[in-house]
């Protein structure tokens, strides 16, 4: 048999090379695309909102308190006499930037912990898992209140506290995926080729669970947004007069009692629309990433 020529070419079917691409919107359906469009609009407003806002947040005249929509003020005025539409446009920035900080920080922490746990296994995995379980027991809002008490109330403090509170949740989900991926044989083949663990993780393991990472991040964004709004509502997040949807819900409550719910309703509606869009998109991305996992 060794007499057989070693260079017999094998016929194969010619197919178009498949495109891998970044985890896009493929397979998320109409709902996914609509949600993505809503989010894109929200992010756009967060970026250019201050340019669009016809009035500033500090242009207050108490004589306009609770005045309804007029020709120049499409949504009317808040209880303090500021332009409601302008406040919504200005508030988008901190309302979206806050959750974004939470998501990025929590994902980085969560991914690093998950990968170390999955790769090292054994005692390292057990210790990290116990630490994560202890952190898991702390509600995010409680941790944020503690942080605000120690470091002073601000958006950054609240966001970082929430990130730490959410990281175990992310780490737990990703650890399972990373362990599954780690045990696949191509990883062993890469090890035999003499690559370092970090290189294999960065180039192969993390990209191969990126679908799940993106999906988890999207779902987390929704939670973080609601929690940050709640923290701002109780006065420990964004500080007035900096505009923020969570702050607006809080400041509007006196209006609700007096029969003028416009401010709370409008800000609450903005939060709900963004959170629902994010969650629907996240669920679809998550389903897709699990469908594609072999």
């Amino acid at each position, binding site marked *: 048999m060794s007499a057989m020529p070693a260079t017999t070419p*094998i016929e194969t079917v010619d197919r178009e090379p498949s495109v891998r691409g970044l985890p896009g919107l493929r397979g998320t359906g109409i709902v996914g695309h609509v949600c993505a469009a809503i989010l894109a609009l929200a992010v756009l407003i967060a970026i250019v909102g201050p340019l669009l806002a016809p009035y500033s947040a500090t242009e207050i005249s108490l004589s306009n308190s609770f005045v309804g929509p007029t020709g120049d003020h499409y949504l009317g005025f808040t209880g303090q006499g500021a332009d409601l539409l302008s406040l919504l446009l200005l508030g988008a920035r901190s309302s979206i930037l806050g959750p974004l900080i939470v998501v990025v920080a929590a994902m980085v922490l969560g991914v690093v912990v998950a990968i170390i746990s999955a790769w090292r296994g054994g005692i390292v995995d057990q210790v990290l898992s116990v630490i994560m379980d202890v952190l898991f027991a702390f509600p995010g809002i409680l941790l944020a209140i503690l942080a605000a008490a120690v470091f002073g109330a601000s958006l950054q403090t609240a966001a970082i506290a929430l990130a730490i509170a959410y990281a175990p949740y992310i780490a737990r989900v990703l650890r399972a995926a990373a362990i599954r991926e780690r045990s696949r044989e191509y990883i062993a083949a890469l090890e035999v080729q003499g690559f370092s663990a970090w290189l294999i993780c960065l180039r192969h393991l993390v990209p*191969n669970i990126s679908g799940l990472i993106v999906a988890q991040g999207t779902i987390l964004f929704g939670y973080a947004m609601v929690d940050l709004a709640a923290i701002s509502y109780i006065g420990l997040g964004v500080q007035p007069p900096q505009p923020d949807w969570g702050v607006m819900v809080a400041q509007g409550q006196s209006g609700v009692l007096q029969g003028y719910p416009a401010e709370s309703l409008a800000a609450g509606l903005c939060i709900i629309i963004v959170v629902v869009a994010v969650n629907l998109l996240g669920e679809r991305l998550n389903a897709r990433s699990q469908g594609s996992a072999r």
Partner: protein
Amino acid sequence: MSGLVELDGLEVDLRVGGSMRPVLSGTTLQIGRGEAVGLVGESGSGKSMTARSIARLLPEGAEVRGSIRFDGTEVTSLRGADLRAYRRRIAMVFQDPRAHVNPVRSIGDFLTEELRTNEGVPRAEAERRAIELLDVVGIPDGARRLRQYPHELSGGLLQRVMIASALLSEPELLLADEPTTALDVTTQSDVMALLDELRRERGLAMLFITHDLELAGAVCDRTAVMYAGQIVEEQAADALYTDPLHPYTAALVAARPDIDATAARLAAIPGRPLSAFEAPPGCAFADRCPFSEDRCESERPALMPIAAGSSRCLRAEELRGRLHLTVSDV
């Protein structure tokens, strides 16, 4: 002969549900430079575990005793950068090529990653070398293949890519763990011929794991037979049929189907193969062996040199020459 690889009394225990079970109990084997050694045996006899021990790919919690030396260096205690440097001197070809390649990376990425990362070869140069080697392994349109993905290639083609990948880093030892078992028969012989030719050309040492005695005989210089985590016989590959030194080998030879003979029923070895952890105090093969005596049940035989090879049988000397004939009549 000073071997490239020397396994000496290698014992490996794996953790199975809280307790430790031996999978290798005293494997001793040498592979010289440029030498091909076949490792045959039934499933679960420890063939793959031997190769994985050499590549340091044992599952977590495995306990290793005894020694593995590669070019004089003790492998079992290597860590970090030393371990990576050692692994670059060996290469492994696996049974199922599809499972051993990252499915979302192109063939080009897969083939050139090691050169680019470990040796700092620029991408264009690495691709040129990969295309050259693809041509050597019988894939002529390499430039196009580099842009394809693993799922677009057939199993045989992908195994050729794996072989190219194994050769690209110019290793000294090739660990081939049943490289053709997952392929269909015609592809098998092509891939095997290729592996054999390239190995000889490059003076590469090889540990070739297979179920197929004949295949091992065709491509290997020496063959070792494993049973229950031990090597029971080891000698020149072509003498294995004509002059088996251990009753187990003789029984394996007799059980192999013969294309020229008409047999109502294939010969089989009575009983079932034992795993290393089930091995009795005496000879592991004793209760399936047609030649076993009382002392075989109580006395564990050592691997003793006999003729040009070695055998782990108490009666090896006295049975020599009779094994082949007698077993086929059993």
